[in-house]
């Protein structure tokens, strides 16, 4: 307790000068490392005027890249969503041996370089890979084609939904579900009517992060895609190709679309956290 009742300073804490200096330092650092790159994307995209910007975005190859990016996300995100729900149901609602090992293995894709995430599939399905000759004889192409892009994206976004759901479902415990089962609900009813409403915001949160990474993945996809313009190019890859061709305005125009997606993701995430926070508080009560 402050000895002097007129003092505005709490018992512990920094002086106003240190406070201002620390806030200033933090803002300066974030401005230099976060705001500046974001500003650079938009200013470079509009460097030659709105006309050039729109021309870069409406180029057929760019549109094709947008289409492929959306398609890959539409396949990869639901797959990892189903996995995330299954994994968190098994891990959060049951006690079994080897759980921490399973948790560590689910996190594995996070500590693997994106380049390696692509490479593992090239070694399996590439022309010189283990199943390459067999696939070629049967007319199936995975590497340098869309299936490879989807596989690599699934790998890098693998843990996102599971990671959000597991701690949330662990915290919520099993009492609600046990009550539902005792009252005669089926397993599916219990999940749909009891568990799902409790985890929907966490689920949405995980899907949001998973989707942002799925649409933005570069390294893994770059290894398996073969960079075929208008065919296996996702938006992040298209940005690279345009940039390497010194077509900077078009590169930054496509990049600005991705930056916009990132900003929308952040805004939605912040909104969810706000919602989500009082939901968790309600669950704790």
């Amino acid at each position, binding site marked *: 307790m402050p000895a002097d009742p007129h003092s505005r300073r709490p018992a512990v804490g920094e002086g106003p000068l240190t406070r201002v200096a620390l806030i200033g330092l933090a803002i300066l650092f974030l401005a230099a490392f976060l705001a500046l790159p974001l500003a650079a994307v938009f200013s470079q995209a509009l460097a030659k005027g709105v006309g050039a910007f729109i021309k870069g975005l409406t180029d057929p190859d760019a549109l094709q890249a947008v289409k492929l990016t959306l398609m890959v996300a539409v396949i990869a995100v639901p797959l990892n969503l189903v996995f995330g729900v299954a994994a968190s149901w098994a891990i959060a609602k049951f006690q079994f041996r080897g759980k921490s090992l399973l948790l560590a293995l689910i996190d594995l894709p996070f500590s693997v370089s994106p380049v390696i995430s692509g490479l593992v599939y090239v070694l399996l399905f590439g022309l010189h890979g283990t199943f390459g000759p067999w696939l070629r004889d049967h007319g199936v192409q995975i590497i340098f084609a869309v299936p490879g892009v989807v596989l690599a994206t699934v790998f890098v976004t693998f843990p996102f939904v599971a990671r959000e759901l597991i701690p949330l479902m662990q915290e919520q415990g099993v009492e609600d579900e046990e009550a539902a089962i005792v009252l005669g609900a089926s397993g599916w009813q219990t999940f749909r009517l009891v568990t799902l409403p409790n985890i929907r915001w966490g689920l949405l949160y995980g899907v949001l992060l998973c989707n942002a990474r799925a649409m933005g993945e570069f390294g893994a996809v770059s290894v398996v895609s073969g960079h075929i313009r208008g065919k296996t190019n996702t938006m992040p890859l298209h940005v*690279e190709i345009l940039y390497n061709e010194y077509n900077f305005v078009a590169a930054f125009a496509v990049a600005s679309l991705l930056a916009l997606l990132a900003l929308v993701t952040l805004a939605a995430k912040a909104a969810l956290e706000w919602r989500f926070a009082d939901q968790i508080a309600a669950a704790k009560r």
Partner: protein
Amino acid sequence: MTAAVSTGGVKPAKRGRGFLAPTILPGFGTAFGFTLFYLCLIVLIPLGHMVLVSAGVGWTRFWAITLAPRVLHAFYISFGCAFVAALVNAVFGLIVAWVLVRYRFPGRRIIDAMVDLPFALPTSVAGIALTAIYAPNGWVGAFAKAAGFKIAFTPLGIIIALVFVGLPFIVRTVEPVLQDLDAEVEEAAASLGATRWQTFSKVLLPAILPALLTGIALAFARGVGEYGSVIFIAGNIPAVSEIVPLLIVARLEQYDYAGATIIATAMLGLSFLLLLAINFLQRWTRSRHAR
């Protein structure tokens, strides 16, 4: 989906042989089975297959490839730059987390949301944006050029890219720990006559340290493997600013599958060793602090 098993009432758990604790909840078999199947299919088999392929190459070639000067230098750059970037982030990430948790000021919420930008922004976008800023004709690069040094196309540029990528890892791991700290401990320290700095370095820092180390480890691991945000700003000059992931891609493009696989396996092994070491360091700090 997961709990598709219809039980129609109370059903005692059948699997009670020590692996699964008894429960009345259904659906473990389906959920666990699917989890394991999908994990093996997407992650474990492909990764294990890569390790097997590299094991088939033999030790002599393994060392010949990994100990080549160009490869060694790439390892030095990748691990070195990731380490320096993680340290820079440890200092500034701690300051950012501190400011966000402890102070209230206008714009705090926006700044809090912005911290996750590196998670949400595609790496290739970050890469070309940073290059545009730090290249000799860029906003910051021009100043550096006038001062007589280069940022982009040198290891310094790589470090800047990795600082960008790693920042949220530190802030987001330290933040919850800072929030949970008891104010009483600080008050006790202050009432016993400690200065604010003493309270911070002797009382607060030891409590934050395990979380900080976790954050450093995460940022470091991400930095070592990072590709998209680095390749543009690095310039990829062999034996100057070439990173390991780029080397792997270059080998693949030359259809040198063995070379790419061996370098990748070596990198995977090294990162795991380092993560293991940091894990031990963390346990040691935690147990020391608990005493």
